[in-house]
């Protein structure tokens, strides 16, 4: 049985009060509670304040390029589909630079878990606006207010084919733990959008801002109904933030559908040596 200590690497360098602290603890706690160890889980980190968790969390890991964590995670899963694979990314990383990968990973229902730190800004590059920033948000890169609409990550992923979409709030560690655990346990593509205040560069989306606008889905909420989920996901366009599993359904994952992986993983397989089967095609 592993402990929080086993997963703990360097001491984090995040700003005091940053939402990443809560998310970092929640991730480690989830892995411990799921009975995983740093040797039994693969984690891919994006680039950003969230990605800097690479040095703070012990695991078989890739600290990727900005935006590319998802395809790295897909590749690991294809090679070793028995290993849980998690991508820890930011909003700019996943919804901006890597947006195309997110869309297509949803379509493929790759059995990986995406944990998005959604704080509306690019913290590591000192506070430019991110794709989830509310329209009109003023930042160094948008001094007159951002002209674009914010991305709605929930609607986007639900309608693109993700089979597990949840939202949590960094200020509520217990809820975040339950969402991360449910996401990792889900067989298929899971996304957990975690609302996270950036205390240094985002003076709008503060703890107070979220505390006033988040609410938990009640027990009767039908998370497996697609239309209900889409409807619910649209609430964030009105700055109302439901917390919980917004959508969950069961579908075969990408690797489930590959007959060549039905018996064992790619790394476990023996070398193919019946070369005549290929050479005869060319005679």
């Amino acid at each position: 049985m592993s402990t929080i200590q086993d997963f703990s690497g360097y001491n984090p360098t995040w700003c005091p009060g940053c939402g990443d602290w809560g998310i970092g603890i929640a991730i480690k706690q989830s892995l411990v509670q799921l009975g995983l160890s740093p040797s039994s889980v693969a984690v891919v980190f994006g680039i950003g304040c969230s990605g800097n968790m690479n040095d703070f969390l012990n695991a078989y890991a890739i600290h990727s390029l900005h935006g590319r964590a998802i395809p790295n995670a897909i590749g690991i899963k294809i090679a070793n589909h028995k290993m849980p694979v998690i991508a820890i990314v930011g909003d700019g990383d996943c919804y901006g630079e890597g947006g195309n990968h997110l869309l297509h990973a949803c379509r493929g229902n790759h059995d990986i878990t995406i944990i998005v730190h959604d704080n509306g800004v690019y913290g590591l590059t000192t506070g430019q606006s991110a794709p989830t920033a509310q329209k009109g948000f003023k930042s160094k890169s948008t001094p007159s207010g951002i002209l674009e609409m914010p991305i709605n990550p929930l609607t986007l992923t639900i309608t693109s084919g993700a089979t597990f979409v949840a939202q949590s709030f960094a200020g509520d560690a217990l809820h975040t733990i339950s969402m991360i655990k449910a996401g990792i346990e889900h067989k298929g593509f899971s996304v957990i959008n975690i609302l996270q205040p950036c205390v240094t560069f985002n003076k709008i989306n503060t703890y107070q801002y979220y505390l006033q606008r988040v609410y938990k889905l009640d027990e009767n909420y039908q998370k497996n109904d697609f239309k209900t989920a889409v409807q619910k996901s649209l609430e964030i366009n009105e700055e109302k933030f439901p917390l919980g599993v917004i959508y969950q359904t069961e579908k075969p994952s990408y690797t489930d559908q590959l007959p060549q992986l039905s018996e064992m993983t790619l790394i476990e397989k023996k070398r193919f040596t019946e070369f005549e089967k290929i050479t005869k095609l060319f005679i």
Partner: protein
Amino acid sequence: MTDFTWLIGGEAGFGIMTTGTVFSKIATRSGYHIFDYVEYPSLIRGGHNAYEVHVSDVDISHLNPTVDVLVCLNKETYDKHKDRLTPKSLVVFDQDEFEIKEDIKKITVPFKKILSDLKGQPVMKNTIALGASIGLLKGNIDELIKMITEQFAKKGENVINFNKQFVQAGFDAINKNYSDSILNYLLKKQGEEKLVLTGNDAFSLGSVIADARVYVAYPMTPSSTVLTDLAAWQEKIGMVVRHAEDEISVINTAIGSSFAGVRSAVGTSGGGFALMVESISFAGITEIPLVVFIASRPGPATGMPTWTEQGDLLFSVFSGHGEFPKIVLAPGDNEEMIELTAKAYNLADIYQMPVIVISDMYLSESHKSVEKSFVDKFIAEYKISRGKLIKDSSNKQKYLRYKVTEDGISERLIPGAPGYFYQANSYEHVEDGHTTEEARSRIDQVDKRARKWTTYLKNDFVTPKIYGDPEKSEIIFVSWGSTKGIVLQAQKLLKAKGTNSAFIHFNHIYPLDREKILSLFKQNKKYVLVENNSWGQFGKLLTMETGIEIKDKILRYDGRPITPEEIIKHL
């Protein structure tokens, strides 16, 4: 001695490609060697397709300047290719479709009437043309019938029999009306069993031999048939082929699977590779093995998608930001493609770096016959070397993924091994993988990565192949990659005129070993650089790496391959 060119042309979208490949296979099944080449526009319908097959008693990978049998499925074929006819050439066409005024040897086959009589689809004109060609060249009609049977096996007896009629009608038309014109060019003879492969097929086959388990690509001419080959075989061979959303996802998927421990490759052309280069650098610093196949076409940008050029050499050599080692290999023909592809996977594993295999449309899409015994022997002798890949570490206390070593190579642990963990870090890192910005560690890691090149040059770099005797030659050609067969033919033509030449053929392109290369350029001779691009890119690389400067250059960059004849003319 048999040595002739058969060319078939017609409108794009009507099966010219398949027809050409069938002709090539009939020739190899009849005991001959072939090299073929296709010209087609970047269109699915409406353009002009031409497929030529060079048939010979000997191993070849060049085209003839002349066409011996021209099969015209439309008038455009005749107009475009009549300049290559000789007084002996035969032209197959249907006089009901168009008229030829010139005084040439005309073989008219009633395509239109046969199609109408037998109620055939327009695409079956090809089948008639094949029957007629086999008749005209005294080929083995049974072999053609057998191939038609194999081709339509899944569609059932009726479809097979329906198609056979068209073969027979074409064959009979020749025997009935032109028995005097029949040439013995395709008479069946003894010959080794051969595979008919494109360069892309050879890359695919090399990858299977090397036990590649993940191939990721986004379709891009002229690399796409690697994707379609391997996708078709994946369940049989236990590989996973992913057609990802873009080339950035392509390379990052492969980096992920390679990190997890399986041999992985990607394939593309210049434009797709341009999207990948940030991740080439990523594979460089994380020291994740990766094989990258580039089938070049003329750029810049979309360029001329279905034509050929060796224009991406310097781009591939210098791809990726920052300083990190990589290896670039450029096969000269199918045999070298099989060898160097399989070697690329070993080098990627041994040196834990990106290894680029660069081809071009001429090599990638042309078929060349390869003796099966060559492939069998290669398979038997090929040894997989995964370098310092380990399943468990000798140092239980502290496994160091990026341990500073004398040869620059560190042990690479397969993720999942119990008791360990590590990160492959795109940031500069210390030996255990954690991020660093500290000066000493930075220097240690930069130097460690660079030492992998030194180790490669010492252990695995291969000096260029030399054809002919430089000491006895007046002219020494210097070239690389797919121009090999063309320069070899130019040497033959020169020899026939009494001129001795030598040829330095590079296929281990980068890095180059300065001392070993310098020793090849000591002769006081006329060195001639031959390249299928406008800058003489290999020449520049050679100057940069060794100081050697070749002033005399034969460069072609109109999208067409260089010909042996233009090399001779230049001299």
